[in-house]
């Protein structure tokens, strides 16, 4: 695995809180005290089920929340500037030039009435990255070739592209102004496995070639294991566990991470029984008073129902929010997904 500990920190998120307001209802706490650090060249996986706040987190970072969303506290430091303190105009300069986004659902994110080349050019011109029209066209061609699309297809419309090519075009668009950080929100979810493999290969290549840092939002643990250096597991708007990828998959400490791994099909162990997590994720406007995972947790005890666990450091780079971890009676290894596998390569 690549060592990233010396790489400079690009993005630092501290105690980020986001609420959604609905008239006549209590605010929904969509994000509570999210913390993470993203270094240059790092791929950080943000994993969780639908409704856990992954997309809200991404939109908060980009400050693109819908009108009823509010960031109530916290800091988003990008190279020593707090993005939350910038004016809307200054933020507009950061978007795409420093932090760009690959949106979910490539099928619908492109405008059907403009050519793909024109849409990429628009991203370049809109952010004043290049103004000379001739140079813009050169840049569009360069970007398309970077993502593996022949330059001759720049004048085609999105419907003439296949699903995988549209996703490539979306990636080209995100790279238009040469950003340092790319936020990829479920970039391969709607694609077939073979196309998914092509896109993942492309993202890994771009990371190496351009030194990109990637925030990779997904619900697919397999993709996380293949792609990411570090992983943040979210549940009901909070961080359940945050560690490097090997720790998350081989010595997870939070019961949610452990259960999620047991519920995830693994081709290399087809004879094992899949275990589902009973119950359903909490609704954000009716959160349980204690730990948000308590109603579904197999190791739940008295304290979990009354008191919310804080994110507890297990060592310098492994954090979990669980009372069991705090009390240091670490959860028995039988429940972990890879018992006795730690010695293997």
């Amino acid at each position, binding site marked *: 695995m690549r060592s990233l500990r010396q790489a400079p920190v690009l993005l630092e998120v501290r105690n980020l809180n986001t609420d959604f307001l609905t008239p006549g209802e209590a605010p929904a706490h969509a994000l509570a005290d999210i913390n993470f650090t993203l270094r240059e060249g790092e791929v950080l996986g943000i994993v969780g089920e639908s409704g856990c706040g992954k997309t809200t987190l991404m939109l908060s970072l980009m400050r693109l929340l819908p009108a009823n969303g509010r960031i109530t506290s916290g800091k988003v430091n990008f190279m020593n500037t707090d993005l939350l303190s910038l004016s809307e105009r200054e933020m507009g300069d950061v978007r795409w030039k420093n932090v760009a986004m690959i949106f979910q659902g490539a099928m619908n994110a492109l405008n059907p009435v403009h050519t793909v080349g024109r849409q990429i050019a628009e991203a370049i011109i809109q952010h004043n990255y290049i103004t000379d029209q001739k140079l813009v066209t050169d840049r569009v061609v360069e970007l398309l070739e970077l993502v593996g699309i022949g330059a001759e297809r720049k004048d085609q419309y999105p419907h003439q592209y296949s699903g995988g090519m549209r996703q490539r075009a979306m990636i080209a668009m995100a790279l238009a102004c040469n950003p340092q950080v790319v936020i990829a929100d479920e970039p391969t979810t709607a694609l077939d496995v073979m196309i998914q493999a092509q896109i993942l290969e492309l993202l890994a290549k771009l990371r190496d070639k351009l030194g990109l840092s990637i925030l990779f939002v997904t619900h697919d643990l397999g993709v996380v294991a293949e792609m990411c250096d570090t992983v943040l597991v979210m549940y009901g708007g909070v961080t359940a566990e945050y560690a490097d990828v090997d720790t998350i998959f081989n010595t997870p400490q939070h019961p949610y991470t452990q259960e999620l791994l047991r519920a995830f099909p693994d081709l290399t162990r087809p*004879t094992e029984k899949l275990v589902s997590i009973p119950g359903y994720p909490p609704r954000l406007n009716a959160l349980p008073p204690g730990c948000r995972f308590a109603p579904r947790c197999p190791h739940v005890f008295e304290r979990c129902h009354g008191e919310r666990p804080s994110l507890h450091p297990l060592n310098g780079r492994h954090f979990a929010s669980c009372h069991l971890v705090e009390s240091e009676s670490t959860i028995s290894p039988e429940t972990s997904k890879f018992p006795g596998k730690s010695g293997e390569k």
Partner: protein
Amino acid sequence: MNQQQPIIEVKNLRKLFPVQKTTLWDKEEKFVHAVDDVSFVLHHGEVLALVGESGCGKSTLALTLMNLETPTEGQIFFEGKDVTHLSGKALQTMRRHIQMVFQDPYESLNPTMTIGDIVAEPLVVHRLAPNQQERDARVVQALEDAGLKPASNFMHRYPHELSGGQRQRVVIAGALVLEPKVLLADEPVSMLDVSIRAEILNLLASLRETRGISVLFITHDLGTVAYFADRIAVMYLGRIVELGETLAVLERPLHPYTKALLSVMPVPNPRLRRERIILQGETPNPINLPRGCRFHPRCPVAQPHCQETDPAWREIEPRHFAACHEV
């Protein structure tokens, strides 16, 4: 599995969709080869997984089995009887025994009907339970078999009150209420969260055990298949390229397409990051099929003769079939 008569047998099934001519002068008639010469059997109480990428024809195959599409050629046998061209009452009876579970539980339930009415509807359509009391009893039974217990909690609720997993259970209950012999499950878990998927897969597996239902499980995800299918059939461009028992296919894949597909399945263990065989490009257009073996343009081990002759379907090892010159 067993030597008795299979519940479904498909022989040389072919389904072509005509393509609209683009100009007035287009002489040649063109077809999309959605299902092209497919043969297989589904045994009693068996789970057969049909795996392939989008556009490989797996859903068309399911629709043809349900007689929702008329096959262009070939035959379908249900319990030994030829049901390829049934119509009217006989068709309706046959359909009662083969039920479908659709992919999207958010869109396949009528939002204005209660759960009880949704599950009772098939009984009304098939005129199976004439009085209310009997109907209710069967609906309760189906809901509880689908894991919605106690059924009285759900009967009078509407789909929007239920979670995705519960909705998919309602869809399954709606299929079970007719006491079918075969379930055609078209991507039944792909819309659900990971933590919920396992319970739906386990439910389908238990139905096979308690009711002896055969399941044709259509999916693009080899990972979920591994857990409960008895056999796997891999489809590529309208044709089955490999078929065998689950473990045999997963551990000793024969066809290069299966090998590539297995190699790119993400494995949830960073210590097992491995060499992947990534096929470049996309599946060719099913209108103009490649000559010879239809996989040759993307095949990593293709030889010159692969461009000339279509490989025959052979039993390479006992009960493990593949169509490839190079195995």
